[in-house]
């Protein structure tokens, strides 16, 4: 039963995203469009339901309202907007033996995670506390309150109040619609991984004009030792990974409003979305804009369109935090200064632990090659700096802020690095494909 509810929930979210993307002038649909639609739908679903719940409407009624909104939006676009055409050229050619081989390797992770989700209970700490624990508190409406003076404010006994509510609301809706005591609360991770895989595959294939490299890229990311665990563990890291990738993908495709929505979804997923990843996406946008031969006014409009979109989407949550004195990050030792041996520990985390194995050694090597050849294409001039900035930002956060503790004890460093891994995979595939090209294609 819970599985049917889960599928129906995804479908409603897809319809909302589908309608909204068509309203935003999409003329063609393809696999990445489907992935984007689900991502957008999940974001607005949880944001709208959280707002409705705050003003006293139950999650079930809220979901009914959202479902009607989705169907209405879908109906409007169906009758009022020109029907989009399906573009499926990525799979027009039959899969080669090599592509089948990588599909099997990727499929192994899919099968393992599905079996894991069906059979193994929620086990890991943060899922039990911050994500599914708070979701249950919200669903049962017993240990939850929107009143800041209550000890149950935002499910405080279960996890940090500073964390945003994307996963809590999405899972609480599933609990409320289905069996609240079932442990099938982590299925969102699987959907999110499929979205990541589709976007990664499409982007790499488009950039390199080699479909097999798209499969290789998805395999490289999926085979990161802790990536497989994160697909079904119920954590929010994979959400950040997904919406960061979607934000950059949308900027690459010059869709600033959609990029703004995905950045908002990233902020709504976990605190790093605002503190680390929003500046990264802004940097990417800046790098794209300075290379365009458009007028300054046009560049400014594009820049602000993105900024205003994410700010407007996130305004309810940010205002709520401001009004109720909820911090942007979890409390800890304050102060920005270099922590002793921080860089050494960071280097060890990158290059000498089984958690990433040899991934970062190879990625950094290829990134250096990309840096040497940076003048060859505008895409290199965008992706190479963004990789360096993201790595520098991670290094700064883990060596100069209170997050250093999580580098020392290895609690979150590897899963934080996981969040920026997809852009390194894209850079890797692009640099390798255009290694000898005097002028790369993009």
């Amino acid at each position, binding site marked *: 039963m819970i599985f049917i509810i889960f599928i129906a929930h995804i479908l409603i979210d897809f319809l909302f995203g589908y309608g909204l993307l068509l309203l935003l002038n999409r003329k063609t649909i393809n696999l990445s469009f489907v992935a984007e639609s689900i991502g957008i739908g999940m974001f607005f679903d949880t944001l709208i339901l959280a707002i409705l719940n705050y003003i006293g409407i139950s999650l079930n009624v809220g979901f009914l309202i959202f479902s009607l909104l989705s169907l209405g939006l879908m109906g409007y676009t169906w009758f009022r907007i020109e029907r989009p055409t399906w573009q499926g050229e990525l799979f027009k050619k039959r899969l080669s033996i090599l592509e089948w081989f990588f599909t099997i390797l990727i499929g192994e992770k899919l099968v393992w995670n599905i079996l894991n989700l069906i059979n193994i209970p929620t086990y890991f700490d943060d899922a039990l506390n911050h994500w599914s624990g708070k979701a249950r508190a919200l669903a049962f409406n017993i240990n939850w309150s929107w009143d800041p003076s209550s000890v149950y404010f935002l499910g405080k006994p279960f996890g940090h109040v500073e964390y945003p509510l994307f996963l809590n609301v999405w899972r609480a809706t599933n609990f409320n619609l289905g069996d609240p005591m079932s442990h099938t609360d982590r299925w969102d991770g699987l959907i999110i991984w499929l979205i990541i895989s589709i976007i990664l595959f499409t982007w790499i294939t488009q950039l390199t004009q080699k479909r097999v490299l798209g499969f290789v890229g998805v395999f490289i990311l999926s*085979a990161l030792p802790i990536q497989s665990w994160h697909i079904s563990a119920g954590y929010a890291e994979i959400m950040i990974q997904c919406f960061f990738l979607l934000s950059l993908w949308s900027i690459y495709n010059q869709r600033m409003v959609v990029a703004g929505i995905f950045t908002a979804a990233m902020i709504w997923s976990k605190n790093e979305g605002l503190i680390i990843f929003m500046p990264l996406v802004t940097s990417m946008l800046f790098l794209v804009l300075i290379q365009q031969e458009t007028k300054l006014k046009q560049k400014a409009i594009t820049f602000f369109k993105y900024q205003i979109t994410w700010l407007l989407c996130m305004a309810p949550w940010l205002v709520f935090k401001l009004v109720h004195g909820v911090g942007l990050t979890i409390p800890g030792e304050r102060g920005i200064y270099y922590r002793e041996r921080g860089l050494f520990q960071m280097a060890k985390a990158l290059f000498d632990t*089984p958690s990433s194995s040899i991934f970062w*050694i190879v990625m950094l090597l290829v990134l250096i090659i990309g840096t040497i050849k940076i003048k060859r294409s505008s895409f290199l001039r965008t992706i190479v700096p963004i990789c360096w900035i993201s790595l520098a930002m991670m290094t700064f956060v883990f060596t100069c802020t209170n997050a250093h503790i999580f580098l020392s004890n290895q609690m979150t460093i590897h899963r934080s690095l996981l969040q920026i891994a997809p852009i390194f995979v894209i850079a890797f595939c692009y640099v390798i494909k255009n290694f000898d090209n005097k002028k790369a294609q993009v």
Partner: protein
Amino acid sequence: MNSIRFGLLILLLSSVCSISGQSVQISNIFARDIVAEDNQVLALNFKDQIAGIPFLLGWIDGDNKQYAVTLETSKEVLLIQMDHQTGWKGNIQMVGISLQNVSFEFRKKNLSDHITSFSNMKPMTPGSINFSHEYSLAGHSFRWFCLAIGVLVMFVLLITSKNLEKGILIGFVIAWIAYDLRESKNRWDIFSDLSKANYEIAILKDADDFIGSTKEQMGDMKWTKEDLSGVINSYFTYQLADHAYVPKTDKSWQEKAHYVITAQPKKRKVTFNQGRYHLIRRARVK
């Protein structure tokens, strides 16, 4: 003298070490006055014990310094590479673990041990989400073997086809597949192990049994918890989220909580207990 050291080992290690909310005592001292050697392994056979139960292995070196590592029981013989452990050098005064009914053997690692320790399952732990296990082969990390294979393939392709780009790509992908195969084997081993245990995670089993009965006992009354730690602490709040919970941060919790769930009942009257967990009805709250 030995009994003093023994007592010291128990006292100090049990005071600092806690697994799943329980104090753990190293009560089984199985070796005294041995010499640490290179390539030395400790083979532990747990006989009929359930796999996945955390335990402590501790030792005292010649300078009276104490060391301990947390490990988990396994179905197969567990091989612990002692010369890789911090503080395993010189004379070792004593070695002990927190489990009974375990047979042990110190020996030099042979080829069969190398293969066994490489292919043995590395269990799922609360930390699996944060970091991966190391797979060692002949005392070296398996990832360096993979890297070496990748570099070799790269050079072969560079020499034969003068194509560095293809060399890096194919070299890395082959190395990555090799590492992934080992990782995948472990994931499937974990899954198979759990399926044999009817998907019950060993450290949660007592908690699951306890929670099932506790819900009936508590009815609509409020509860709080104490002396639980780690993943068990989180597991209780997660599973009992449908019952009104009074956190200890609530200043008036004493007046509100009808029940306490604890691992340390002390002298209080226990309403119900299952394994390590106890439900206590608080008389002051009606």
